[in-house]
């Protein structure tokens, strides 16, 4: 018995393909959830730090949409969900998307999808029937896994910062992001928004595994359709995720809306297109503002790992004095340096965050696992500092253009204050507080 039937027009098919491509950048499996009025496709990345969801509205996106819930007992199930390997879906929809002139002869007339799931004799299959001109019918019967999807939760109430911008404009900006950069810092001050994509230097012994790279794009807030963000707030997300989103959003000319509160809280990006509502929830990387961690374990860990702590910190003192002109930029960059650079490990820690908050609703409680992250932060900071000279020279270079673009960003005092907040959070590291001390002097 088919519990779900829907028909797609060739245009909708191509949109679905675009959506699947986008989902494929997050996870290799797509979760499909059908209810009486909509179909929701979601993907959650393996580290659970990014979540993508496409809501396809039954009567708008589809030519026909019918959900006949299976009855279990006397109660009809409200939702049907399954999980399909994205590669299988993509291979079904691949190739025909694009310009219709290419495949005039075997062009698609429509696509019928039905989901058969039944107890007993019925085979459980996701059946896609593509009806082409000349009566060529391509039928795919894909296996699926019955699996309830995980949804990320975003609390709009606490999201005080928001901006929205045309997706095409945003795509133009994204094209400038340095290749291979990992993090994206979104920062605004005095009517200018800086999008900085950057990579931290990664060292393994004396070998440089990754060269640091910073690319800053400064945009006037007038480019935005709407812009209401706290001044001088740094929000850091993954470049890769952001690029995946904007690549998809840029296909159609729409307005991308971002909502977020503060670092280390999720950020939501939404946009919609005829019958399709797209939502992404990304974890932001950031400092912990609550001084809830016990400094002791961190310190001891750091000590055991880095016996040369004393020398490295003294070096830092020396180096941090070196770039006086970009004093405003340097601390902010320094602050970034404390963020973990290899992205894979850190989201796994944040992973819970996206979800714990869903049930708990208590924000602060949710952020507890940061202890572990601090350990990483520490380790990373050390790694960077073990090579202070090169690191610093690179930073000053990269910092100068960003400063010049930002123009009137000389209010070092304000920055320093903002910074003090950040360093407070990192107090357990002790050495950073020394840095802070130097600046104050």
């Amino acid at each position, binding site marked *: 018995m088919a519990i779900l039937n829907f028909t797609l027009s060739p245009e909708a098919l191509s949109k679905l393909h675009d959506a699947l491509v986008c989902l494929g950048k997050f996870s290799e499996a797509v979760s499909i959830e059908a209810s009486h009025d909509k179909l929701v496709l979601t993907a959650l990345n393996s580290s659970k730090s990014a979540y993508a969801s496409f809501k396809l509205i039954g009567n708008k996106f589809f030519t026909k949409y019918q959900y006949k819930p299976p009855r279990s007992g006397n109660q009809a199930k409200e939702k049907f969900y399954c999980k399909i390997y994205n590669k299988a879906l993509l291979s079904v929809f691949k190739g025909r998307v694009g310009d219709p002139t290419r495949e005039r*002869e*075997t062009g698609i007339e429509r696509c019928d999808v039905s989901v058969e799931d039944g107890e007993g004799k019925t085979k459980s299959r996701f059946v896609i029937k593509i009806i082409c001109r000349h009566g060529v019918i391509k039928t*795919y019967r894909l296996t699926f896994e019955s699996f309830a999807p995980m949804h990320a939760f975003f609390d709009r109430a606490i999201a005080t910062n928001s901006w929205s911008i045309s997706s095409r404009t945003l795509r133009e900006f994204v094209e400038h992001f340095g290749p291979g950069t990992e993090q994206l810092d979104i920062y605004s001050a005095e009517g200018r928004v800086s999008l900085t994509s950057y990579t931290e230097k990664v060292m393994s012994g004396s070998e440089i595994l990754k060269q640091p790279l910073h690319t800053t794009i400064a945009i006037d807030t007038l480019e935005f359709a709407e812009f209401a963000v706290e001044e001088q707030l740094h929000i850091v997300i993954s470049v890769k995720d952001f690029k995946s989103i904007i690549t998809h959003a840029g296909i159609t000319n729409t307005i991308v809306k971002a909502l977020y509160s503060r670092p280390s809280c999720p950020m939501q990006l939404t946009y919609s297109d005829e019958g399709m509502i797209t939502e992404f929830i990304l974890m932001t990387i950031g400092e912990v503002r609550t001084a809830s961690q016990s400094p002791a374990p961190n310190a001891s860990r750091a000590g055991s790992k880095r016996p040369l702590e004393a020398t490295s910190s003294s070096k830092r003192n020396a180096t941090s004095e070196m770039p006086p002109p970009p004093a405003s930029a340097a601390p902010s960059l320094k602050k970034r340096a404390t963020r973990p650079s290899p992205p894979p490990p850190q989201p796994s820690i944040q992973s819970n965050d996206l979800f714990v908050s869903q049930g708990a609703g208590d924000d602060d409680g949710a952020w507890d696992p940061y202890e572990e992250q601090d350990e990483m932060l520490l380790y990373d900071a050390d790694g960077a500092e073990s090579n202070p000279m090169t690191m610093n020279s690179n930073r000053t270079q990269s910092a100068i253009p960003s400063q010049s673009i930002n123009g009137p960003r000389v209010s070092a005092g304000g920055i320093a204050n903002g910074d003090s907040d950040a360093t407070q959070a990192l107090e357990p590291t002790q050495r950073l507080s020394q840095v802070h001390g130097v600046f104050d002097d």
Partner: protein
Amino acid sequence: MSAIVEADEPPIFKAVSSSARQLFQLLNCIRFANKAHVQISNEGLRFAVEESRVMQGIVFVEKALFTTFNCNIPAIEPSDDDPDALSPDLPNFQISLSALLETLQIFGAADANNSRFSKPDNDGYGSNIRPHRPNAFSNQALGMAGVCRLSYAGIGAPFSIILEESGVTTTCNLNTYEPESPEEIPFQRDAMQVKIIMQARWLFDAVSELSSTSPTRLDITAHPQAPYLSLSASGHLGSAAVEFSKGRELLETFTVAERWTQSYKFEMIRAAAEAMRLASKVSVRGDEQGVLSLQFMVEVEGGGVSFIDFRFVPFLREDDEEADEDEDSQNDDEEEFDDGEP
């Protein structure tokens, strides 16, 4: 070349073509195996390639494709009109097909298609509509077409190819090998059960469609009624089928007495994909034993038609029911798996 030409006897075979391109295009369709069996007759050249005795590809290069074609068969003239028939008297030998293709490519016979060779897994849609159509900048259009001379002096002599293009001459002598006694895959023309003539591109489209499930087996089924012809394959992620349900519109000729179904190794059928892409029409024939014959009609540049012939031996199926049962039991397993989930 001079050494060969000036030998006492005239060479057995000498031919000149205005371009190596056609020859390359045709032979490229059967490059699934390394050694090609070449047979020279008064009608043309016959290149046969086979794989594990279950797949066979034959290209017959008619003498009309050459500007001059001289063949001095030593003993008796072959009276047989059928180019497929193997007469032991005809000069025949083996050469390395890949080496021959390399040679023919020297002057960019494949210039338009280079990308395809570097990416064989390209989905093929790019050049699907009019494959190998010369564009305004191809050598042919610019009048830079070279000359390709082929010759073969006799048993033991190399097969030599001389390519001349814009004042550059390349001479290649390919060693010839003793022919293995090639046995054709027998196709019973008198016990033919299926005969379908259709556009080759549709077959290409169907096969590339099915390849997405990375199947091992391709099932071809022909029905006297709708859905007439269906190709199906199943892989790990599910199964896929392509049906040509409006037989009359799609299939130029469709002769099926009763339901006919056979399974073939998917990879083998896919090895003929290049021919499907190049050809304009294909004749799909199946006999009582399930041997599949695909005959491709290729319209060669500058007019003229060439044929590429493939034959495939089917997988052994005791009877259809058993195969279906197999499938069912597999599905049962999967269902159990599905049910095991929450």
